């Protein structure tokens, strides 16, 4: 269950964002679509607890995260939220598998079998022992999805997950994200400007 109420945010009192209320029931996914500059990424960071809202409330998994302290947010995030970033980020000195192991280590959920199955699902199992620098754009995108879902989060937030993928891989990735969400009873919120994704979601908001 995800609920936001009168969410507002401003950068240094200059840029001001006001967001529609979000109301998602269990198992519901959401597409948030909008042009660049309308605060899509800001909304995602608010939902992930990376930014603090200036007013309003965010309720995730029965918790009002706007009232959590920074340390409690870290804990909440590692147990409940997986983020797919617009541009993939990794620890570049490590291999794909080691990056996933790092993510598991932080969340205290060591499980090599899970790494294997996620990488196979995303069709990049043969790159497990490659350094992240050596991956192609598409492979990096998929590896970053693996990072987001490796710890089986309750909420998967994806920021333009399909922007660097062709049609085939775009469909594949969205299906995979939805499948992951279904299997682990997680909810998926995708933020994008890519209208290709519309047909995959029953519920969408335009910013």
């Amino acid at each position, binding site marked *: 269950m995800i609920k936001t109420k009168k969410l507002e945010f401003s950068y240094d009192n200059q840029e001001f964002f006001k967001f529609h209320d979000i109301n998602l029931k269990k198992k519901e996914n959401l597409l948030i679509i909008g042009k660049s500059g309308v605060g899509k*990424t800001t909304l995602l960071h608010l939902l992930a607890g990376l930014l603090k809202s200036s007013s309003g409330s965010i309720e995730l998994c029965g918790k009002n995260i706007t009232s959590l302290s920074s340390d409690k947010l*870290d804990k909440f995030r590692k147990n409940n939220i997986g983020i797919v970033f617009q541009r993939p980020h990794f620890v570049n000195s490590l291999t794909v598998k080691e990056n996933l192991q790092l993510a598991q280590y932080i969340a205290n959920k060591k499980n090599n079998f899970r790494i294997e199955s996620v990488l196979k699902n995303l069709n990049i199992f043969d790159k497990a022992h490659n350094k992240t620098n050596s991956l192609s754009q598409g492979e990096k995108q998929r590896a970053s999805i693996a990072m987001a879902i490796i710890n089986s989060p309750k909420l998967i937030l994806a920021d333009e997950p399909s922007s660097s993928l062709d049609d085939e891989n775009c469909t594949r990735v969205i299906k995979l994200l939805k499948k992951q969400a279904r299997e682990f009873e997680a909810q998926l919120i995708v933020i994008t400007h890519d209208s290709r994704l519309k047909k995959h979601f029953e519920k969408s908001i335009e910013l």
Partner: protein
Amino acid sequence: MNNNLKGIDMVVGAKGSPLQLILSSVYHVDSPTGNISYKEADEISKNKMVGSSIKLLYGDNYKGFRIVGAEKKYIQLYGAVFKKGNEWNKPFEVVVGSKVSKELKINLGDEFVSSHGLRENGESHDHKSFKVVGLLESSNSVIDQLIITSPTSVWNIHDDHDHLDDDEHQHNEKEITAMLIKFKSPMNIIQFPRLINEKTNLQAAVPSYEISRLFKLFGFGIETLSYLAYIIIIVSGFSLFINLFNSMNDRKYEMALIRTLGGSRLQLSKMIIFESLILTISGFLLGLLFSRLGVILVSSFMEESINYDLNSFNILTDEYWLLILSVLIGLVASLIPVIQVYKMNISKILSDE
């Protein structure tokens, strides 16, 4: 070096440089200042202030190792123990130090011919050969690199007329090279050397005084080197700091990523501190390794030229301080990156594409 000074309060020898006298008679690294008359030396040794004395004759060598004619108590002075064999009983019997027997592979019963002078290529004394009757255990002192024999042997080998009898009137014409003296009371060290230097044509030198004078002369160079070392330490501390600082900037995405995965600030800070400590401690260990390699190198040079080796491979107390210092530098250098991690704005870094 102090091992070699034990039991020697004063050295009497021919006039010349007092430092040279000490270096040649105590450390056996320099040439002797000259010879002195046996009779005069004997008179000094009978003075009531003298506790014990050892007359030394040197000036010959075998393959670069010095042959010293000395009284038998010379061996006890350094606390050397026999590994094999015994002291000499007859002229031309010798006892060899542990390093000599090891390097030249000398064994009991071996015979050799000495050369004149202190270098290997001196004129050899072919007409008489020495016989090894005793091998010493290592005593970590100068005696390890000496060949010791009776004074008579050295007198005889330089005596063209080959008088093998050594009665008292012969001794009166004989000469020795130096005499080591231990006083009855440490108080005598003040007046007795002066007495000899003023009243006789001999020279008296106090080893502890001469050696500290030598170190004072070296002191200037050593001080400069240590200031240089301090500067190097400070500069490396700064460069470590700048390196960590820069690598933090390069890796801010990684840091932000770890935070979004749920890593706490504390975890990240620990990571940075460990990284810095690994760098400084491995730097310390490498430094230790290189310093020992340096010691080995210098020591092998020294051994070649003056048969002295340095054996200080143990960790010095100063080096424990150095370890503490490097750990401190590591901690201080990681301080600012840690503060950066605490102030990091994850959202801004991640959307800063």
